[in-house]
Structure formats: structure tokens, C-alpha cells
């Protein structure tokens, strides 16, 4: 046990220390040193993660607990490590993809002035993400949650001198924060009900306590925790930050906004799954399905290559969340893993394309060429064949074509969704069928927009000629090895054989079985949920064939339509004026809606509070000021007239008395004589009496 803890300490500390080191010395080190340090540290972290994984996978969880805060009268808060199977898998995933992204960035970020800052931020992100995965305490998860949000802010706004990038990073952080309000409320409710935030203790307490706990409290706690997931994993209505986050460098988008950070929300749901009761899960299922649908629709009309992938990520995250909601715990997590690989692969391929296009236009002076605009691409199949192949493989995994990894995970999710709606229709009626309906439509949409993207980018003729000066050609070449190596790895991991030997049914794979060990669903508190889940597992095999055929039909239809519309068309006619087109392109006008409602409300509240501040609070301050001045004048008066007057009075009296006494020295002889006589009489009286 102890060796693992030491390794874990290394896994945490190496990225953190490298990050601090690189950040402080970023101006003094050469680019090669920075890259070597960053990638080297990443490699070591990955190897250590691998060792820990091999030692502890499918064994009892690795645990370590440390008493952090002792509060009198209340139970203590402890922090520590709690690595179960899902954490171990995520450990490998995060460190592995971080390594690949850093290798990719050696070439991609070459020549950028912020080279050292970039690698420092990436290492810091890795550290924060590993923190979320390994800890056993909800509060510490929250701490690392915020750190990950901060790392994302730094990385999205990496080129902060660009106004849109700075705005996007702020937007991401603020929208995230809104979700975190709910998260914190959920944590507080759990603390007040169960008096502990330790995940292991909670799972024990859940099994023990029964009718003593109010069911509505559990509902709101679950909802609150899901709100955190909504913010981080870009669910509706908090999905507006992810498209804007594409302002960051493409490897960052690959690491954070495809593979790892956005998956943190789904990971959280997996961790706390035992606390979520049936009503929360139903809400989660609907939110996930709606998000998947919205993301798919919005991807249809984008012309920026990264925006399509961003909306695709939103859509796939919707799938994962929906899968959690329908109780398909293993399928959801499985999709998280496969999605990490193929989405990171897609993003890195897009990065390779952007990088190649940038380099190809360097020799043309004064050209403002948006390398991300798909309308300027075309025919890249001939110039970048290797990238094309990897792109096709990863896109196939995204769409869910058989023999890829994505097919397995998506199939599992859809099957579970259909079964769920079947079981739930007895409880909530026909509306439960909306969930799988949206999911199936999204399969069609996914096939369509990916087909559209591949055709626009790789097929046809290059459309950049209109934007170039006369007689100039783009010299597009394949990229060097730091870019291609991660692409190969990610492409390989998009196939089925890594995850399951059976290309059509993942349920017997080692992965699936290992994920199932997490749950111990036997709490009397969640009877409803457990009944539904067992029922789903019971009926699941009936819907397998239906799912398979439906998905294949939808994929074929989607791809076919895309080919019909876009393949071998000279001029790409996209009707921009139809309302549906505009709806898709503007992301359901969510940004506009938020601007007009929420932001307007916030602005008005700020103005109102400002008015109160100036009129009421400032006038109080003015009043106090005036009062002080008047009071000081009164005091002045009292001081000058009364106090000084008193003194003057006593002085005058003393003067008069002195004059009187002095009058005896008047120089008049007769006064002296009077005094002598009076003293004589006085003495006679004294002696006589």
C-alpha cells in the first residue's frame, strides 16, 4: 500500500512542481528545455499512473484518509485518497491524453511567445484534474473543481490580448460558477443530512438510513450536485461557454474541452451515483437528451472547423449525462472513455489542419487567412492524406460506425435509453419516450454534420483561391512527427479491440465488468430507483436488435444526405436565411436570450444597487460629515466662550484681588497707618479673648 501512496504523491506533485517551475522561469528557459520538461514530466506521470493502475485495478480500492478539520460538536472533515476502478481508469486517461497533447503542442505552439506559460498551464491543469479524480471528500472535489475551472480560464484566454479570447475565458468561468452555486448547495444539504462528506462513509450511511431521511432533501441534494455537473459538462442551459472556449489553442480544446475537464462532470455523477434518487435521475436523463439534441442541431450550420467539434462535444456530453440519468452507469462511463480518445483525436486532427494551413500561407505577405474557416478549405485529402485517414477513423467512432469504439459505447447508451423509456412509461407516461427519440435523432444529426465536415474539408477542390492574391498558391505539407504521433495513438484507440473483444456487445468486456463493481445498490432509501434499474437490466436484451438496426439506419441516412448535399457540388449552397439555419448557426439564440434576460436583469440590479449606494448610503455618509462639522463648531464655541471665559473670569478676579492687595502699597502713608491700627486692634482682641 505504501509504495502506491508514494507513487500517487509523485503523480500529484510532479505536474504541480513542473508547472510552478516553468511559470516562474518561463522567460529564462529555451523553448526546447521547456518542451522537454513539460513532456518529460507528463511522461513520468503517465508511467506512474500506469504502475498504480496495474497494481490496483480490480482489487480493493486504494485508500488513505487524513483528519483535516476538527469541529467541536460536529463530525470531522477528512481529506484523502479514494481510488476505485473508475478513478484508476481516469488517472490513466488524464495523464495519457495530457501526454499526447503536450507532445502535439511541441510543434503546434512553436514560435509562440508564451511557450513556457503554455506548458506551465497545461501541467497545472493536469494536477487539478488528477485532484478531482483521486480524492474521497466532496469538499476537496469542489476545491479541485474550482482549480480546474481556473486552469481552463487561463488556457482559454491564453492569447489574452485578443479581445474575444479574454471575453470567452471570462464567460467560461462565470457560467461554470453558476453551476457551482448549485454544487455547493448540494454539498451543504448532504452535510446537514449526513454530517459527513466522505464518499465511502456516505455510501455506507445511505445503505443504513431509511425513513429517517427526508426524501425531498435527497432530491435537492442530488439536483444541486447535478447543477455542478451542468456547469462543468456544458449541459442545457449552461452550455453557452463551450463554443466560445474554442478561442483557446486547439490542443487545449482537445485536452480540456473534449477529453478531460468536461468529463469531470460525468465523473462526478459516477462518483455520487448512489445518492441520486429516481426523480433526480429522471431530470438528468431529460436534460442530457435535450442537450444532445441541441448540440447536434447547432453543429449543422457552423463554418468554423472547431465550432463543429465543440457542438459535437456538447452533444456527446449530453449522451453521457443522459446515460447516467437512465441508470446506465457503465455505458455512460464507457462512452466517456471512448469519447475522450476519438474527440481528442478529432480536435488534434483539426489542429493539424489549422497548423498546416498556417504554415502554408506564411510565405504570402499580408494575407489575413482564417485557417479555421471550412469555407476556405477543400480537397485537403490530397495534401494531407495521413491526417485525412486518422480524421476518418475518429469521425467514424464519433458517428458510431461498427467496429469502432464509439459504436460500442453509443450502442450501449441507446439500448439503455430505449429500455428505460419502456420501463418508465408505466410511471410517467409517453413523455419518457422523448429521451430515446431525441437520442436517436441526434445519431442522425451527428452522421450528417460529420459527413458535411469531412466533405467540406477533405473533398472537392480548394476554395481558397478566391481569397489569395493572384498567382499565389498555398503550399500545404504534412506535419512533423510531434503532431502525427499523437494522431496515430488516438486513431488506434478509436477501434473496438482496445475495449472489448466482441465488436458488437461490450457487456462482457473487462471494462464493463470492472465498472459495475462500484455500485452496491441496496439502500432502502432508493427503492424506486433500484427497482427501475433492475427492471431495465432485465428487459435490456429485448431491445438490442432494435437499437442496432435503428442506429445503422439513421447513420446511413445521415451520411447519405450529407453526401447528396455536399459532395461534388461546385458552389456550396447553404441557405442562410431560413430560420432553422439561423437557429442552428446561432446556437439556438441562447447567447442572445441570455443577453436580453439574465444579463439585462443583472445590469439593472447593478444600476439599482448603484443608485441606492449613491443616494442613500452616500447621503448617510454626507450627513455624518455635516454632523461632525457642526458638532465641531459647537464644541469650538463652547471651548472658546465658556471654558476660556471661565479662565478669563478667574484671571480677572485674581487681578482685581491683586490690585486690591496691591492697593495697600499705594504709597499713601495714611493707608499704612490704617493697617497698623487695624492690626493692633486685632491683636488686642486676640490676646484679650
Amino acid at each position, binding site marked *: 500500500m505504501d509504495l502506491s501512496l508514494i507513487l500517487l504523491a509523485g503523480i500529484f506533485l510532479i505536474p504541480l512542481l513542473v508547472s510552478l517551475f516553468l511559470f516562474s522561469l518561463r522567460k529564462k528557459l529555451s523553448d526546447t528545455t521547456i518542451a522537454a520538461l513539460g513532456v518529460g514530466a507528463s511522461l513520468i506521470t503517465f508511467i506512474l499512473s500506469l504502475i498504480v493502475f496495474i497494481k490496483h485495478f480490480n482489487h480493493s480500492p486504494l485508500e488513505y484518509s487524513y483528519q483535516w478539520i476538527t469541529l467541536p460538536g460536529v463530525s470531522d472533515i477528512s481529506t484523502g485518497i479514494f481510488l476505485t476502478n473508475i478513478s484508476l481508469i481516469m488517472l490513466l486517461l488524464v495523464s495519457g491524453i495530457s501526454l499526447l497533447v503536450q507532445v502535439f503542442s511541441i510543434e503546434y505552439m512553436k514560435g509562440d511567445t508564451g511557450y513556457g506559460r503554455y506548458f506551465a498551464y497545461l501541467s497545472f491543469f493536469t494536477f487539478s484534474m488528477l485532484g478531482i479524480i483521486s480524492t474521497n471528500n466532496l469538499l476537496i472535489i469542489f476545491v479541485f473543481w474550482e482549480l480546474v475551472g481556473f486552469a481552463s480560464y487561463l488556457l482559454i484566454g491564453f492569447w489574452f490580448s485578443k479581445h474575444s479570447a479574454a471575453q470567452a475565458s471570462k464567460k467560461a468561468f462565470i457560467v461554470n460558477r453558476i453551476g457551482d452555486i448549485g454544487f455547493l448547495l448540494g454539498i451543504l444539504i448532504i452535510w446537514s443530512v449526513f454530517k459527513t462528506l466522505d464518499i465511502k462513509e456516505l455510501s455506507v450511511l445511505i445503505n443504513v438510513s431509511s425513513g429517517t431521511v427526508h426524501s425531498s432533501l435527497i432530491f435537492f441534494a442530488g439536483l444541486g450536485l447535478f447543477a455542478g455537473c451542468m456547469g462543468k459538462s456544458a449541459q442545457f442551459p449552461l452550455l453557452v461557454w463551450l463554443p466560445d472556449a474554442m478561442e483557446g489553442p486547439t490542443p487545449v480544446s482537445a485536452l480540456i474541452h473534449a477529453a478531460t475537464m468536461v468529463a469531470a462532470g460525468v465523473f462526478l455523477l459516477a462518483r455520487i451515483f448512489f445518492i441520486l434518487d429516481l426523480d433526480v435521475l429522471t431530470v438528468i436523463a431529460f436534460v442530457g437528451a435535450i442537450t444532445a439534441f441541441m448540440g447536434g442541431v447547432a453543429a449543422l450550420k457552423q463554418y468554423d472547423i472547431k465550432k463543429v467539434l465543440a457542438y459535437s462535444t456538447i452533444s456527446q456530453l449530453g449522451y453521457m449525462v443522459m446515460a447516467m440519468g437512465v441508470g446506465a452507469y457503465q455505458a455512460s462511463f464507457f462512452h466517456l472513455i471512448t469519447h475522450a480518445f476519438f474527440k481528442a483525436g478529432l480536435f488534434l486532427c483539426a489542429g493539424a489542419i489549422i497548423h498546416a494551413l498556417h504554415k502554408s500561407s506564411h510565405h504570402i505577405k499580408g494575407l489575413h487567412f482564417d485557417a479555421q474557416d471550412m469555407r476556405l478549405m477543400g480537397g485537403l485529402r490530397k495534401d494531407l492524406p495521413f491526417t485525412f485517414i486518422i480524421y476518418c477513423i475518429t469521425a467514424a467512432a464519433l458517428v458510431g460506425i461498427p467496429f469502432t469504439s464509439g459504436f460500442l459505447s453509443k450502442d450501449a447508451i441507446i439500448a439503455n435509453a430505449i429500455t428505460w423509456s419502456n420501463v418508465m412509461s408505466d410511471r410517467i407516461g409517453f413523455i419518457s419516450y422523448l429521451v430515446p427519440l431525441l437520442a436517436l435523432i441526434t445519431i442522425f444529426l451527428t452522421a450528417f454534420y460529420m459527413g458535411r465536415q469531412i466533405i467540406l474539408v477533405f473533398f472537392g477542390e480548394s476554395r481558397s483561391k478566391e481569397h489569395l492574391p493572384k498567382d499565389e498558391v498555398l503550399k500545404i505539407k504534412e506535419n512533423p512527427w510531434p503532431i502525427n504521433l499523437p494522431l496515430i495513438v488516438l486513431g488506434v484507440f478509436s477501434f473496438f479491440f482496445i475495449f472489448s473483444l466482441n465488436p458488437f456487445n461490450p457487456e462482457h468486456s473487462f471494462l464493463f465488468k470492472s465498472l459495475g463493481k462500484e455500485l452496491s445498490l441496496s439502500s432502502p432509501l432508493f427503492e424506486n430507483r433500484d427497482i427501475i434499474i433492475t427492471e431495465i437490466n432485465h428487459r435490456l436484451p429485448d431491445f438490442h436488435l432494435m437499437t442496432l438496426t435503428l442506429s445503422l439506419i439513421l447513420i446511413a441516412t445521415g451520411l447519405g444526405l450529407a453526401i447528396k448535399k455536399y459532395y461534388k457540388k461546385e458552389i456550396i449552397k447553404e441557405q442562410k436565411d431560413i430560420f432553422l439555419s439561423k437557429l442552428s448557426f446561432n446556437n439556438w439564440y441562447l447567447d442572445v436570450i441570455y443577453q436580453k434576460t439574465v444579463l439585462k436583469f443583472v445590469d439593472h440590479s447593478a444600476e439599482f444597487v448603484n443608485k441606492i449606494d449613491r443616494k442613500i448610503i452616500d447621503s448617510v455618509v454626507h450627513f455624518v460629515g455635516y454632523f461632525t462639522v457642526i458638532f465641531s463648531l459647537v464644541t469650538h464655541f463652547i471651548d472658546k466662550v465658556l471654558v476660556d471665559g471661565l479662565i478669563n473670569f478667574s484671571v480677572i478676579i485674581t487681578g482685581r484681588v491683586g490690585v486690591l492687595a496691591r492697593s495697600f*502699597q499705594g504709597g499713601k502713608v495714611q493707608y499704612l497707618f490704617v493697617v497698623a491700627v487695624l492690626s493692633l486692634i486685632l491683636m488686642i482682641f486676640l490676646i484679650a479673648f
Partner: protein
Amino acid sequence: MIPIEHFLYIGAALFALGIVIIITKKNAIMVLMGIELLLNAANINLVAFSRHDPSIQGQFFALFVIVVAAAEASVALAIVLRVYDHFRTAELNKIKDLQE
């Protein structure tokens, strides 16, 4: 026989008159007159008490007092003359050089 108190009353009255004259009179010579009256009042007292004394010491003392009064009056007049030479006035309330 005249009771001795009558002589003492007269002596006291003359003494008081003498003090009043000294205090109230402006002219320096009038003050001297007051002093003489003072001394004579004292003489009356002395003689009155010598009636009961066979060695009539009081009367002898009174003779001495008269002689001393005469001498003192001449010295005082000489001083008043000198004061008049200096201050050009014999009025006491105008001689204020010792005033603060």
C-alpha cells in the same frame, strides 16, 4: 472724687479722634497735629493712673512724653519741610512715589 473711668473715656476719645485726624487729613501738618493729640491722650491716661500712686511715677513719665513729643514734632516738621522741598506739595495723597 471724679471716677477714674471718666479720665479713661476722655483719653480713649482723644486717642480715637487723633487716629481719625491722621487717617483723614490731607495736609501733612494736620497729621502732625493728630499725632500730638495722640500723645496727649496717652498723657491723660498716665496722669489719671498716677493719682493712685504715691510715687507719682505716671506724672514724671508724662513730663518725659511731653519733652519727647516736642522733640519729635520739631524733627517731623523738619521732614515735612524737606518733603515740601522735593514734592512741592504738602498734600499726602499727592505723594505717591512708593506706589507700585
